[in-house]
């Protein structure tokens, strides 16, 4: 067959680099075309993406059921809020500190329960998330401001010459963080650690038998996931300028869980799609008013019917699903 010059373009058009370059270009141009309202929507989409990526480490890569991830998010947000309002520490200094606080919290609370399997881990993490939220409501040592939360959090700034205080600047801040995170996580997926995580997810016993210290690797996943959630909490707190316990409910944890599963476990592009669904869907369907959440719920069910492995499942190292009915010979299901 004769080789046409177009084939080269075709090959280029399907290449990964080009897709990434196109996506980046869209992200760079988008905020200059729309109003602040839509920039803010894209900001929250970024927050959900970061949260989805953070839970994806725990749930997607290692297969640990974590339904209390909002707790880590809350620790990050409140660390920022309290240290900034009480001691005036700048937000950007608090960014790594919030990550550290959430990571430390995850290490302390997950160490004693990391041996639990499946649903028992799920309920324990759920309980921890709830304990964090209830503790914030109860205002221990007069730090968290009870149900009203903490007010008056600063804008992030690099000295007087760069203050991040507009929707546009927040948009670039969050997507810069998301971009760097994606770069790091992509490298991590192919590393020794990433492969060990996937091995544990697929068969923990075999992984142990091959000399993988599954306990440490599982803890590492929790610590890293929590740190990323802490970063998201930091940016979220300074964007809203206040934090309150109702932003960190069990419901938020459920949404993060859905982001990972709708996109496809362990798949980074999947997380972005899942976050887009969770973050953008209720906004797009706002004209439907009170019916929009009905549509949202139905869409979640439909997605799982038609794409049970997620919208963009990971190709290599994809998760195997086992039928809930086992080999019962039910063919109508």
């Amino acid at each position, binding site marked *: 067959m004769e080789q046409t010059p177009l084939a080269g373009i075709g090959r280029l058009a399907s290449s990964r680099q080009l897709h990434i370059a196109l996506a980046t270009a869209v992200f760079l141009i988008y905020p200059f075309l729309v109003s602040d309202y839509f920039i803010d929507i894209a900001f929250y989409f970024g927050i959900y993406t970061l949260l989805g990526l953070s839970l994806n480490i725990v749930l997607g890569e290692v297969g640990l059921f974590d339904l209390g991830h909002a707790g880590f998010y809350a620790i990050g947000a409140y660390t920022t809020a309290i240290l900034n309002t009480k001691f005036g520490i700048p937000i950007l200094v608090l960014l790594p500190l919030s990550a550290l606080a959430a990571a430390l919290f995850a290490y302390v609370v997950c160490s004693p329960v990391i041996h639990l399997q499946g649903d028992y881990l799920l309920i324990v993490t759920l309980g921890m998330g709830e304990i964090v939220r209830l503790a914030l409501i109860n205002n221990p040592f007069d730090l968290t401001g009870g149900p009203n939360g903490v007010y008056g959090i600063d804008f992030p700034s690099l000295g007087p010459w760069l203050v991040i205080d507009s929707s546009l600047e927040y948009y670039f801040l969050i997507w810069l963080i998301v971009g760097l995170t994606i770069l790091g996580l992509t490298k991590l997926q192919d590393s020794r650690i990433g492969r060990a995580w996937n091995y544990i997810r697929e068969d923990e016993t075999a992984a142990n038998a091959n000399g993988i210290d599954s306990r440490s690797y599982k803890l590492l996943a929790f610590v890293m996931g929590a740190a990323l959630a802490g970063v998201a909490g930091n940016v979220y707190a300074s964007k809203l300028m206040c934090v309150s316990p109702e932003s960190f409910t*069990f419901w938020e944890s459920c949404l993060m869980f859905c982001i990972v599963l709708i996109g496809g476990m362990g798949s980074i592009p999947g997380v972005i799609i899942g976050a887009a669904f969770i973050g953008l869907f209720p906004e797009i369907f706002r004209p439907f008013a009170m019916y929009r959440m009905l549509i949202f719920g139905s869409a979640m069910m439909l997605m799982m019917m038609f794409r049970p492995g997620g919208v963009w499942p990971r190709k290599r190292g994809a998760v195997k699903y086992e039928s809930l009915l086992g080999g019962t010979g039910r063919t109508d299901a």
Partner: protein
Amino acid sequence: MHVILEQIINGLTIGSFYALIALGYSMVYGVLKLINFAHGDFFTLGSYLGYTVLVFGAALLTAHFGLWGAIMAALVFAGVSLAIVGLIVERVAYRPVYPAGRLPAVVSALGASIFLQNAIMVLWGPRFQAYPPALIPNVRIQFGNIHLTLLQIMILLLSFVLMGTLYYIVQKTTFGAAIRATAHDRKTASLMGININKVILFVFTLGPALGAVTGIMVGMYYRQISFTMGWNYGIKAFTASVLGGIGNIPGAMLGGLILGVLEMLGAAYISAAWKDVFVFIILILVLIFRPTGILGEKRAEKV
């Protein structure tokens, strides 16, 4: 001393709510290894249906059947309706995703939960609804030093009758043996000629019906219901079923009662604001030392 006893009885009342809801979670989990997140909303829907019957049909029903008749009618109506809703949800939301495994089923369950919750909001409005006052005459009964209301006694009585019946069905009848066998090992059970389909339909009828009855009791006890209350009760009841050993039916009952009593004692003797924290800490401690719950059996890991 009598204060503790009163608190324990209050705790048993709340605990029996948790236990009845927990049974729904536990039965479905036992058979399908699926956490039915929509179960809390079955409970809410039952409560709202009972509310509608009691508020709008009360005059007619009490004229024909008397007050107890009206309450019975509400319980039966909500129970039967929710059994049907349970079947529909199983058919629409869960059955198509069974082959895909448990995690997609979790998302589907959350979707079903959002759908039901918002359907309730659309139908009855977003505000709190109040149950009619003093449906059951507000009589206080005294045993020695302990004061109880008639409502509380009725709730405890009905709950224990329901739990006793379910216990009998599951532990003593042939069909119950089929349910337990399915929960234990589904594949072998189906090879032994057990109709798994029937078992699944049974748990998706009975669980929501029990939830609906509980919803009406909660409505009469607290008198205020909201469309989001399913989440709170759902989390507590799910916690209770894990505490007792998930998938284990006596375990769910025991877990619910223990959770209710702990919550009441925690509220009375530690701090009302921290009672839920106290409950979750106990749960985590139990799971650290007994990872499969109080009555859950230890199973060797298959390699």
